[in-house]
């Protein structure tokens, strides 16, 4: 052992070293890729972010250049501070403070010294900048929104956060990413793919030439412009109708599923979320807990659909052969749906309703009855309600619809599991769930689901998934949005329901929605709702709901209007929907009195009520 000590040590060490060399030079080289090499500097070439147009090729979103004055503290030399402050238009104390701040951030890495410098200031600074070592100008580009609403549709862009960098290898610190809306949903198409050039660099960060004659360099692939399905005129008209009201208007072109307008009120200017004051503005918007402008009521808000849901129950009952259009049900200011349990209705004593009349009178008794009969057609309530849910789900209710916008809510359509949880051991029956018959109770829908339901009725039995994008760089959209999705209801049944909806406008609850020369069909709804303030459950004024489409034959626009605490459907939702239809179909409004009444309508007092006084009256 002693004689062999040196040979053993030397040979084993050498073998170990050669194996290690083999490992670090030939095998395990992936974790030290080109990108990690300090001696190679990557410089990205970004394609200009895609523009966004409305359906009539009006430009909605473009890019605008701006300039950042960057600083690298390690390169700083003594400077003429008086002149420098003068050209930058800042105080000397701010200059010193900012230099300290950048040093704290990093001594060697560049950071923004002054951001978003205007073009004219840029010209002055650029001329003198050679005197100031350690400073340079970086040209950047940001969004410019050419409209002051629709922020819920468009979204915004901002710098990627650490989580996104970790999650997606494409992004690097300081790059911009789409947030919310179309900017997020179509991020890949709008941004294109950046190109990269590699440069050889020495340790003083000086570029000494292209790395390996540029063999690794790539050129960027251009971004795509996007054409929305939104009609700018209709969208802005909707915004004007929603002044001083909270809620949502969603209009869909029934035969294509294209969303013509997606109005969320209160809205805000998308330009608030770009530029220097972005975070301040964002906090202000977030802190508005009454108006909640960041909450998309049209996509995220889940509300009971109220009487509008009676249409779905009618269609299911027809399909299940529980009724036909001649079936008559008697209503006496309501009815007992179970022992000692009475459901009120506004029909006078002895009113005999058939389907048509029940729809335009919105008779609770009629729809509660046919719902109960539908469920009871099956051996037990569980099987009945599951079958009923199958029908409801085919309208796209109770689930995310699959539209091309990143936010949304599923809504809720209860099934047997749901009731078994609340009433264990099967201690529930059809009568327990009777509220579903009139769209109250457990059912929750979002306004876009109601708009889609309307489009489905307009199409007599099918819909195409609603979507916001019509074309991407003139290429058509994916198949998901072009295939017809049929409901479980035969199309002959729709005509009977539509006839009832027509009479809602002609002689029913929404006669103020009538438009001269256009056959409008629709259905009003009113939804009870509650709020919790300081742990106390308070009932608020009902939500005003209207769904409808026009013209009756060959429909061009299907619409759902939802006005928070607007009381019954006729008061706000129906006239708003009708004005939207008139605007879209006739391009101008003849009913100026109605338009003025709506635009000047103000519900702000209603919204502030629960916050100002604990004893307030509702449904005034």
């Amino acid at each position: 052992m002693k004689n062999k000590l040196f040979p053993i040590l030397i040979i084993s060490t050498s073998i170990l070293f050669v194996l290690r060399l083999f490992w670090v030079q030939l095998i395990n080289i992936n974790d030290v890729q080109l990108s990690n090499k300090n001696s190679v500097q990557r410089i990205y070439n970004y394609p200009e972010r895609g523009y966004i147009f409305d359906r009539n090729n009006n430009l909605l979103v473009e890019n605008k250049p701006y300039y950042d004055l960057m600083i690298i503290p390690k390169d700083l030399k003594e400077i003429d501070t008086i002149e420098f402050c003068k050209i930058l238009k800042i105080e000397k104390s701010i200059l010193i403070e900012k230099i300290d701040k950048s040093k704290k951030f990093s001594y060697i890495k560049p950071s923004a010294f002054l951001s978003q410098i205007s073009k004219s200031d840029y010209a002055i600074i650029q001329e003198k900048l050679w005197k100031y070592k350690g400073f340079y100008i970086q040209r950047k580009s940001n969004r410019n929104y050419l409209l002051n609403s629709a922020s819920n549709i468009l979204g915004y862009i901002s710098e990627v956060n650490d989580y996104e960098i970790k999650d997606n290898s494409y992004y690097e610190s300081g790059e911009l990413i789409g947030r919310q809306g179309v900017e997020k949903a179509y991020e890949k198409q709008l941004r294109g793919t950046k190109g990269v050039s590699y440069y050889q660099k020495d340790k003083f960060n000086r570029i000494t030439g292209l790395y390996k004659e540029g063999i690794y360099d790539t050129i960027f692939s251009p971004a795509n412009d996007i054409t929305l399905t939104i009609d700018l005129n209709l969208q802005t008209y909707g915004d004007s109708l929603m002044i001083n009201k909270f809620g949502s208007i969603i209009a869909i072109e029934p035969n294509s599923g294209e969303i013509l307008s997606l109005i969320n009120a209160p809205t805000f200017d998308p330009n608030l979320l770009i530029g220097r004051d972005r975070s301040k503005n964002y906090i202000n918007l977030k802190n508005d807990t009454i108006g909640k402008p960041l909450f998309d009521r049209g996509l995220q808000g889940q509300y009971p659909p109220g009487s509008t849901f009676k249409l779905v129950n009618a269609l299911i009952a027809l399909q299940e052969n529980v009724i036909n259009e001649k079936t008559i049900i008697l209503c006496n200011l309501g009815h007992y749906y179970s022992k000692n349990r009475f459901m009120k209705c506004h029909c006078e004593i002895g009113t005999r309703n058939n389907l048509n009349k029940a729809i335009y009178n919105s008779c609770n008794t009629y729809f509660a009855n046919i719902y109960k009969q539908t469920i009871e057609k099956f051996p037990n309530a569980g099987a009945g309600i599951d079958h009923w849910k199958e029908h409801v789900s085919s309208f796209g209710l109770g689930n995310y619809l699959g539209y091309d916008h990143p936010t949304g809510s599923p809504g809720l359509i209860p099934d047997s599991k749901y009731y078994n949880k609340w009433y264990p051991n099967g201690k529930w029956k059809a009568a327990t769930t009777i509220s579903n018959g009139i769209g109250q109770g457990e059912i929750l829908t979002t306004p876009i689901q109601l708009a889609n339901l309307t489009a489905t009725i307009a199409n007599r039995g099918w819909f195409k998934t609603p979507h916001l994008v019509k074309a991407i760089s003139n290429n058509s959209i994916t198949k998901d949005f072009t295939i017809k999705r049929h409901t479980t209801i035969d199309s002959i049944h729709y005509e009977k329901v539509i006839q009832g909806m027509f009479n809602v406008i002609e002689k029913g609850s929404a006669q103020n929605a009538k438009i001269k020369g256009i056959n409008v069909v629709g259905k009003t709804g009113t939804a009870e709702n509650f709020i919790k303030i300081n742990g106390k459950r308070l009932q608020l004024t009902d939500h005003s709901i209207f769904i409808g489409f026009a013209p009756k034959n060959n429909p061009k626009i299907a619409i759902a209007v939802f006005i928070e605490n607007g009381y019954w459907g006729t008061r706000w939702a129906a006239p708003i929907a009708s004005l939207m239809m008139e605007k879209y179909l006739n391009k101008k409004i003849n009913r100026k009195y109605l338009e003025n009444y709506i635009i000047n309508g103000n519900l702000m007092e209603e919204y502030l009520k629960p916050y100002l006084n604990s004893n307030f009256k509702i449904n005034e």
Partner: protein
Amino acid sequence: MNIKKIDWLSIVILCFLILLGLINIYSSAHTNLLDSMFSLKHPFGKQCLFIIASIILFFLVQLFPFKFFEKFASISYVLSIISLLGLFVFGKSISGATAWYQIFGFGIQPSEFAKPITALALAKYLSDFNSNIKTIKTQFYSFLIILIPIILIFLQGDPGTTLVFLSFFLVFYKIGLPSIYLNLFIGFIGLFFLTILFNKQIIIISIFFLSLLLISYMKRKKKSIKKIIMYSFVFSAFTLSVDFIFNNIFEQHHRDRFNIVMGLQEDNRGVGYNTNQSRIAFASGGFFGEGFLEGSQTKGSFVPEQHTDYIFSTVGEEWGFLGASLVIFLFSYLMLRISKRAELQRNLFSKIFAYSTVTIIFTHFFINIGMVLGLVPTIGIPLPFFSYGGSNLLGFTLLFSIYIKLDSQRTSKW
């Protein structure tokens, strides 16, 4: 002087290594200089000067009579210790170590010369017919000979050179030091790392079971059982103290270096920066290398200390796996050759000196390349004959020239 007996092959290999080192120094120091290559402000120019000085030193050593080195071993050892002591007064600090005298613009590092001189002193003391390494007395004096420079150099903040002096234990072992020292030493080093990696309780329990296993295996031999119990007791005590040593005696930057090598901590910016940059250099070298003056990491001067301690990463990047393996081969061939000739040496003084020569070169080789390849914690120590540096080159030349001189007298009679 017998020209035929001179170890010519070793000299050829050495010249080749020095030349390769020079080429890589040229490359490493290529970009950031505006002066002419041969200017004395340039590492390349300076290294050329050092090489010339080394050649002169080599021939000078060959001119001295053989007996000279034995005679003057003690006095030169004392002078060397004095020069190390003088550093506390006149020394200049470079990157944390007070190891330099500044004379005429050149930095002189006395510890580099202390290595061959201590080797001479040890050889002289241990080859004396009164010495027997198996006795406590001889052990005490020989430990003292290396302990004095160890303490001085450690206090001057140069852990790398301290380790080189510690490696003289290998020489003691070669000439008959009882194996208990080496066993304890290896055991301590291994336990040190294991304790940092694992829980100390786990280590002690495994020591306990391991010794139980060994005892049951060797039922009959009472002596071995006693030994095993003693070892396991000492090792357990050491394990318990490691926690304390690591957390209280070591400083944070030492702990960081250990943790990085053992993969307990990742850091590519701070302490681990050198290692990471050198890893990148190796990876971009690939099999054939990027070529002379083409290494992008080298060109950008990203690997710190690349012409000195990290010179091997230049080899890796510019000459690839092939070039780096060649350098490793040359070093190991040289060391094997010297150790083989040492075994054949009949003169004990020459034999011990040759052992020391191998040990010193090996320790440098092991720590330096191990560090550059990320196998050993970052410890600043040059690669012999290869790294830039005058004292280092001259010190090693002195060591090597004396070895050549003593080796050429192999068969001469006393």
